């Protein structure tokens, strides 16, 4: 915390801005939980196939508030969201948690090193791929010990590409709107063009 405070001093972010940031993060977390819950109600041919609406929030959090905040939003979203849908600590919760954390880490790294070349669409697609892959890997490790389940990956990944594109575009549009409101983008690096 001391480091963080010092860091904020360097960045010229006042106590007021810190409060702003906290409030905005809480709001983003809430939006993510709502999207997570709404999405659980959307019918799907297979339980693993989802649009990944809640990931839009994680995506905009990365450029606006940084990787740590995005990770926090994801974890809060999966934990609280699964409590609402009644899957907390169940297999789908564990799958969501691992896949969500892995995808968020991948998106943070992608954003940090490739944000000059890639917009949030590219970041989103990378996240979607990692999410699908880790989902199947966790299912393999915890539930179904048959190598055959990996053969479903090409099918899942092609869906990931479409869903990643859609959520990435949504994230760019949302981020454009939010950046003006949040006004903490100073020193936070390049955003998606």
């Amino acid at each position, binding site marked *: 915390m001391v480091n963080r405070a010092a860091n904020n001093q360097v960045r010229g972010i006042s106590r007021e801005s810190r409060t702003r940031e906290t409030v905005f993060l809480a709001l983003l977390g809430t939006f993510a939980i709502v999207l997570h819950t709404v999405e659980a109600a959307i019918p799907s041919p297979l339980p693993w196939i989802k649009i990944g609406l809640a990931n839009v929030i994680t995506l905009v959090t990365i450029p606006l508030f940084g990787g740590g905040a995005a990770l926090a939003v994801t974890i809060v979203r999966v934990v609280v969201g699964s409590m609402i849908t009644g899957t907390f600590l169940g297999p789908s919760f564990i799958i969501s948690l691992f896949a969500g954390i892995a995808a968020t880490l991948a998106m943070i790294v992608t954003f940090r090193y490739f944000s000059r070349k890639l917009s949030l669409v590219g970041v989103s697609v990378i996240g979607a791929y990692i999410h699908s892959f880790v989902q199947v890997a966790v299912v393999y490790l915890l539930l179904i010990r048959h190598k055959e389940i990996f053969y479903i990956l*090409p*099918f899942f990944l092609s869906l990931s590409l479409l869903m990643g594109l859609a959520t990435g575009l949504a994230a760019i549009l949302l981020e454009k709107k939010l950046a003006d409101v949040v006004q903490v983008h100073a020193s936070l690096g390049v955003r998606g063009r």
Partner: protein
Amino acid sequence: MKPMDLFRLTTWGDRLLVVILAVITLAAFPLVGAGTRQSDIVIIEVDGKPVKKVSLKNDGQFTIHGVIGDAVFEVKEGKVHAESAPCSNKVCIHQGWTNMPWKLLVCIPNKVVVRPVDAGGANGVDAVTW
């Protein structure tokens, strides 16, 4: 907002990444079939109706009375193929050997289909979700 406006939001890096991933993903699709479980039973259908069930565990030949004539199939080392067919184009013979549920031997003029079924049963359940 028009689709073109959405396209303009993306960078060249995005487009390149999407194309590369799409190519890799599509290229991986043929692997899907290669990995499915082998079957050890084939069901033979004539004119849409199952007429015979043959185990692939025992080598041998069997004859099927199709709509236009008799077709001979051979089972060897857990796989089946069409040895002779009464039709003119012999597509089923050229299809070669199979023991995969996704690869059927089909003779359209004779209305004969050889369908390998999944070892766990055609409608076996692999997993249940919560």
